Structure formats: structure tokens, C-alpha cells
């Protein structure tokens, strides 16, 4: 790999300080504990760890879907724990987006409409601009011919690419991906991965993005700029890059 393994310096796009998440209930469970973690613009970070170690839980906290029990999550330098539910939603809409193992597309809507959904919710563009942008993104992911199809008329890999297209709709700062290739064959996985890789690389010049990707796949993790390893809800010493 030609890219530097060390993070570029500057203000982190997303950062956690002492984040711990404990779930109450009959059997209280600690999902993650004492997470200190920062991602710089232009970084492609892989989060690895055994099943049940707390990778998804960390991603939900970073994406403001969940709130830490203690500690603080900063998005683009802004503390988030005191924000209202609506303000967190607004921040999600403009700056963060998710790609999950399952595509989570709205089944009744076409690929186009699914990609336009976050744009319409944000309401910054007019109809024409939204359509043009959605088509652009879909075309850049090789889905130009599938824009009018509904999710059930597409293959798994195509659906996952539509989900990525939707994640790009509002040009977010950080894309959080939870095993985005988990349901895909090797060809599709490779495709999805190189799309993500390109996204980060091409964004470095102007509007630098970051991608945090949770994966079991060590080959995939190896392609990241940096790897964060989690065991039992805690970050372990960074594993050696094996490339």
C-alpha cells in the first residue's frame, strides 16, 4: 500500500473520550467501556474484534443512534451528549451515515427514491437537483441502469451499492459501515470495498471524508489505513498491520 499508515493530523471528524455504554435491565451488560478514539479527515479505519466484542455497539454510539452512559462523542468538534433528540437527528442527517450488513432500503421505493430520501429530508436541493445528484451517485456506483428498480428487483450486491449511494446522498463527513460486505460474495465484496476506498481517497483533496468499517474479514481490514481492535468492549493495542 502506498498510503501512509499513520493518521493525517488536524481536527478529528469524530472522536470519543472515555465512552462507556452500560445497558440496564435484568442482566446489566457493558457493551463498550472506556473508548478513546479519534478519526481524522481522509482516514479509512477498520474496526475488528471477535463476535460480541462490541463493534456494532461502538458504531451506534459514533453514529449518534445510541447515547454513551458516560463519556462524550464529538462530531466535527461538537460535543453531542447534551443535544436534543431532534438535534442529534439533524446532525445524523447532514454529517453521518450508515451502511449495514442488511441493506435497509425502503421496499416500496425505487433505487432513485431511496437515494433521494435523505436529500428530501434535508431539503437543501430542489427536485431537479436531487434527481440529478441521485442519478449521478447511482451511475458512479455502476447502477445507472437500475435507478428505476425497486430493491426486490435487484441483486444483493446491487442493493448494497444502492445503500452506499443513499449513504452518500447528503455528502456526509463520516460513513459508518457495519459489515457492509457480510452478505455478499467475493466479487461483490471487492466491488463494495473498492468503492469505499475510492470515496475516501478522492475526497482527500477538498471535502475530506472518513470511513469507519466494522469487519470480520482480515483481508479487508488490511486494506484500511488503520485498524482498531476491540475485545470485550475495550480497544486493545493496535494489531500490527500485516501488509
Amino acid at each position, binding site marked *: 500500500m502506498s498510503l501512509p499508515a499513520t493518521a493525517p493530523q488536524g481536527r478529528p471528524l469524530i472522536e470519543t473520550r472515555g465512552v462507556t455504554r452500560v445497558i440496564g435491565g435484568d442482566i446489566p451488560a457493558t457493551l463498550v467501556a472506556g473508548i478513546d478514539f479519534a478519526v481524522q479527515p481522509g482516514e479509512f479505519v477498520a474496526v475488528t474484534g471477535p463476535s460480541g466484542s462490541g463493534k456494532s455497539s461502538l458504531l451506534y454510539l459514533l453514529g449518534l*443512534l445510541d447515547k454513551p452512559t458516560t463519556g462524550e462523542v464529538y462530531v466535527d468538534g461538537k460535543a453531542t451528549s447534551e443535544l436534543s433528540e*431532534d438535534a442529534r437527528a439533524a446532525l445524523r*442527517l447532514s454529517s453521518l451515515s450508515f451502511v*449495514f*450488513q442488511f441493506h*435497509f432500503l425502503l421496499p416500496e421505493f425505487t433505487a432513485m*427514491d431511496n437515494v433521494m*430520501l435523505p436529500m428530501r*429530508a434535508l431539503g437543501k436541493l430542489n427536485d431537479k437537483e436531487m434527481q440529478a445528484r441521485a442519478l449521478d451517485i447511482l451511475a458512479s456506483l455502476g447502477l445507472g441502469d437500475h435507478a428505476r428498480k425497486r430493491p426486490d428487483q435487484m441483486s444483493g450486491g446491487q442493493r448494497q451499492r444502492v445503500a452506499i449511494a443513499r449513504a452518500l446522498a447528503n455528502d456526509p463527513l463520516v460513513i459508518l459501515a457495519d459489515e457492509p460486505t457480510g452478505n455478499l460474495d467475493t466479487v461483490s465484496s471487492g466491488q463494495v470495498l473498492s468503492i469505499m476506498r475510492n470515496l475516501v481517497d478522492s475526497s482527500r483533496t477538498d471535502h475530506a471524508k472518513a470511513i469507519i468499517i466494522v469487519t470480520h474479514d482480515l483481508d479487508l481490514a488490511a486494506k484500511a489505513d488503520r485498524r482498531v481492535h476491540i475485545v470485550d468492549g475495550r480497544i486493545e493495542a493496535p494489531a500490527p498491520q500485516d501488509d
Partner: protein
Amino acid sequence: MSLVLSIALTHIRARLRQTLVGLLGVATGVGFSVMMAALMEGSQRDFVSQLVDALPHISVSDQRREPPPQPAEDAFDAVEIHGLTTPVIRPGIKNPYAIIASIESWLPGAVAPSVQSKAVLRFAGRDTAASVVGIDPRREPNVSKLATQIVAGSLNDLYKSSNAIILGSGLAKRIGARVGNSVTMVGGNGRTMSATVVALSRTGVNQLDENQAHTLIKTAQILAGQTGLVNEIRVRTHDAMGAREIAQRIEAETRYKSVSWLEANEDLLSAFQVRNFIMFAVVGAILLVASFGTYNIISTITHEKTRDIAIMKSLGMPARTVRRIFVLEALMIGVMGVIAGWALGYAMSLGMGQVEFKSPFMDATRLPILYSPTHYLLAGAVALAASAIAGFFPARKAASLQPVDIIRGAS
């Protein structure tokens, strides 16, 4: 198209059959409400207008509400009176024409004198009791519908022969008399006179038609054995609903008991209030049941769309937008249901208006239907409000959903 609207429409379209059922629920509720209101208020108005037409709006009679005060009561604060016989008072209103003139001077309406007397009609060897009303054929059309209720002959035929009588159609049938026949009238004190049947009247109210006969005032006075007698002054006001106040004023001025049609039929009118209350309760229940249907549908949709709601919220859609989607869905079902319900209600009202209705007390009539925009607007507004409320609770629940709970379980 707004985002909220397009998502709502998609949901509604995807569950076409359920939407249709919900729509039918609302439509049935609105339709039956409209029809029932049209029927209830139509029959009520019809009944009241018959009542108002058949009777004088105000009847001033020669009775008094209180027995005349004794001179001793005027002189002392407290008196005890034993074994008093009230002196015989000559029946009739004193100075009736002066009273009529004074009422006419301020009344918005018309006044006519009449003589109420009882008589036995003897015809073909049979005796039948009847109430004989002496009237002034020139004034009578101003205070009653009698002139229009004549089915053979005319009101002015009373002038045609010296003792002319108009029989109620039922009465004529009972005694078997026709126009041109001569009947014998026997008055209260045995005075007998013969009269020629010159016309028949028919009000449509059987009880009146079988018992009433009309003559000239003079004829009735002779029958009662008292010249100059007028024992009832009938008043018709321009505004039938204002009759109560006018009756009070007449009574205050003349000291004679004057009863408005509202007072005379108080029990009936209060029965209408009970009827209206029952109607509103039933209509309310119908609409409530319809709104349960809407609640059920929106609940089902939100339940089925749990994952989509989680997706939308995880993308950053605010809770209020999610809530609006489902309230809008409920309102769309409501609006479509209301429009269908209006059509249904109108069609059912039309159908009901065709039904022939036979009553033992009245002539056969069609069911009276009142077409009032108020009914439609009211039923529509209540149904829409019920739909909005029925949609609000599932919508609020959907909007408060935490996306992470669903995403954790699904991935």
C-alpha cells in the same frame, strides 16, 4: 410532492384492501349519520310545521289561570276563606272586538275571533258528538290553513245558506253525510237547529277530521244560546318560534289565558330533545366505531413498517416527520371515507325519501327528509377529527421508536 405525502401515499397504496376497509368504515359512519340526521330533523321539522299549521300559534281563551281574587284578599295580607262559592261567570271574552283591535295594533301577525262549542250532530237517526267552531270566513284564512284544507265546496259557502256547516271529512264519513245534506245540531242546553252541509275539510290529522265542524260565528253563538259570545281569539304570528313571548304579552294585557303552540305542545317538544339526544348518541357511537377501524389500520401499518421507521429515523429524519406520515395516512383514509360517506348518505337519504309511510294517525306520506349542509359538515368534521385522533396514537408510538433497538435485532 412532499416527502411525508409520498411515503404516506405509498403505505396507503401498498395496503389497498385494508385502506378500503377503513375507508368503508368511515364512509358507513358518515353515511348513516347523515341519513339519520336528515330523517330525524326532517320528520321533526315536518311534524312541527304540521303542528304550527294545524293550530293557531296562540289561543286566547276565556279562562283565567288563577281564580278571581276575593275582595277580602285585596284588603288584607292574610285571609282564610271558608265555604266560598265562586259566582257563576258568564262564559266568553268580554269586549272581544276591542281586545282584537288592541292586539292588532301592535302584533306582527293576524287575529281572528272564534266560538268553541260542543254539539251533537243528528243525521239519519244517529247522534254523533262533535266540536263546532264558529269562525269568521274573512279573517280565518289569516290565522289557519282551513281555507286550503277544504276538499269540497269552499270556505265562503258558509254565507250561502242561513245555517251552513263545514264538516271534517272523517266526521262526514262517520255520520254518512255529503255536501248538500241537512244535519241537525243539538246544542249544550238542548237547543236544536238544522244546518246544511256546504263543504268538507281535511287536515290530514285524523283526530281533527273526525271531530271538527265549522260554522259562522253567529250560527255557533245561537247553538250555544248566547249572542255576542266569543270564547277564543286565535292569533297567528309571523314568527312561529316567537309565539311564547307574544302570548305572555297578550296575557299580561288582557288578563285572559293565552297559550302559545309551544306551551300547548311542551311535552312533545321536550320529547324531541330526548330524541335528538338519542340521535347524537347513536351517531357518535357509529363514528366512534368507524374510528376504531382507522386506529386498527394505522396501528397495523406502523407495526408492519417498524423497520422502515427505524431506517428513516437512523437516516436522521426527525420524530415529528415520522409522526406526520402516519397522522396523514389516517387523515387520507378519513378524507376519502368522508367523501364516500357523503355520497352514501345522500344516496340513502334519497332512497329513504322514496319510502311511503303509513300511519294510523295521519294520511300516508313520504318520509320527510331534510337536506342540510350542516349535517354533512358536522359528520365530516367529527369523522375527520376521529380519524386524526385514531392515527395520532399509533403515529406517536411509531415516532418515539428507538432505531437502534430495531437495527440491533435485525443485523
